[in-house]
Structure formats: structure tokens, C-alpha cells
């Protein structure tokens, strides 16, 4: 066995090299959620250290899932800490979707969603992912935090509400705005082949 392998208390073991090899992926995952590369470095370093030193991996499931569960908990700790001292309201003023609808709340012709065909075909297109990440990063900070906790960290909305002290109705509004803005950004900048703003 590799000299870096650390025995666990049960049947599994934690291979330090294997954990370290996930670092790049962990960094990407964390930076996407926190939007702070320096903080992401610290969190990933802590998560890797914790994974190697605690050695509680019991061999069931994949090592990667277990390491990412540790990382996920560390990210949630940071978000929880940040939400104690909010610097802005979760419901941001400049992002309502009223401009897309007419007086009867039906789509204006200029804003009506077009047919994207089979958008999954774009998953092999590097340009799609560049624009997708730009669109994600264009979401307002607090909107993004809620949206990414739900969709990227995979928390249930109830858990997000509990962690951020949000009501259900506020969370639904935020999620709706995030999805609508992301959809619109993709449509304007990728689907219609327009220039990035």
C-alpha cells in the first residue's frame, strides 16, 4: 500500500494522494459556490486536511463522494457564517421580471422564450460552458448564493431556508428570479448567438 495511505477505523482507508488528486475539481466546485478564489483555496485545503486526518471513510460508497461531503459541509459552514452578517438584502431590487410581461401578464413578443431545440447537444461544446459560467457569475451575489446552495450543493430548499434564515416564499421568489435570469442570459448570449454583455 502507498506510504501516504492512512488507515481508517473501519474497513476503508484514505489514500492521501488520491484525495489530493481531487484538489482541482474541489477548487472549481468551491469557487463556483463562493465566488472567492482565495477563500476557496482555504476551504479546499481544510477539507483535504480533514479527510486525511480524520480517516473515517468506511469503504462504503466512493471516496470522492465522501470527500465532497466533507467539502460541502465546510462550504455550508462558511455560508452560514456569512449570512449572520448580511451586507445586502436577499431580495434584490434591480432584478424583477416585470419587463418581460405585458399589462395582462402575458409574454411581450420581444421576451417570449424561443425554442432551444435539443439544448443537451451543447454539452460537448466548450463555448457553451464558458458562457454558462459567465451567466452564473452574472447573477446577483445573494441570488446566486441561494440558487447555488440549492442546485450546486444539492440542498433541499427547506435546508437552504434554515441555513440562511429565509421564509419559503422568499426562497421561491429568489429561485424563480435566478432561473429566469440564467435562462435569459443563455438565450441572449448563446442561443441567439449574440455578443456577451
Amino acid at each position, binding site marked *: 500500500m502507498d506510504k501516504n495511505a492512512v488507515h481508517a477505523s473501519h474497513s476503508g482507508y484514505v489514500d492521501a494522494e488520491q484525495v489530493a488528486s481531487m484538489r482541482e475539481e474541489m477548487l472549481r*466546485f468551491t469557487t*463556483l459556490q463562493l465566488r472567492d478564489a482565495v477563500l476557496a483555496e482555504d476551504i479546499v485545503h481544510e477539507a483535504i486536511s480533514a479527510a486525511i486526518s480524520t480517516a473515517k471513510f468506511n469503504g462504503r460508497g466512493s471516496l470522492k463522494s465522501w470527500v465532497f461531503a466533507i467539502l460541502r459541509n465546510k462550504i455550508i459552514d462558511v455560508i452560514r457564517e456569512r449570512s449572520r452578517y448580511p451586507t445586502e438584502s436577499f431580495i434584490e431590487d434591480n432584478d424583477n*421580471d416585470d419587463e418581460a*410581461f405585458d399589462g*395582462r*401578464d*402575458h*409574454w411581450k413578443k420581444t421576451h*417570449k*422564450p*424561443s*425554442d*432551444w431545440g435539443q*439544448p*443537451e447537444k451543447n*454539452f460537448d461544446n466548450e463555448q457553451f*460552458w464558458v458562457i*454558462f*459560467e459567465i451567466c452564473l457569475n452574472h447573477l446577483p451575489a445573494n441570488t446566486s448564493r441561494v440558487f447555488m446552495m*440549492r*442546485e*450546486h450543493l444539492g440542498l433541499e*430548499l427547506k435546508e437552504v431556508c434554515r441555513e440562511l434564515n429565509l421564509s419559503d416564499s422568499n*426562497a*421561491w421568489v429568489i*429561485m*424563480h428570479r435566478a*432561473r*429566469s435570469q*440564467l*435562462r435569459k442570459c*443563455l*438565450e441572449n448570449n448563446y442561443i441567439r448567438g449574440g455578443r456577451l454583455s
Partner: protein
Amino acid sequence: MMNCKQATRLVSQSQDRELSLPERIRLRFHLFICSGCSNYNKQIAFLRKAIHKLRER
């Protein structure tokens, strides 16, 4: 009669909670008659797929 603004909100909420039977019926009917909202519905589902795919990359 449901309008598009209400329909888009329900589409989004359907990703986070179980809609009631009346909500599902009204939304389904609206999506049947409104191509804009039908496209919106497909695109919102696609966004979730894309985020999951992004995690795997």
C-alpha cells in the same frame, strides 16, 4: 385563467416543491396552449441538467 407570469412562477416552484393537483392541472393546461411558457418550462428543466453536468466536468 392562468397568465404567463403565474405560469413561470409555478414552473420554477415545481422544481422545489410538489405542486397541488389543481396547480398541476392549471399549469399543464397553460403549457399546452402557450408555446412561450412551454419553452420556458423545458429550459428551466435544462438548467438543472446543465448545473449537474457542470459538477461532473
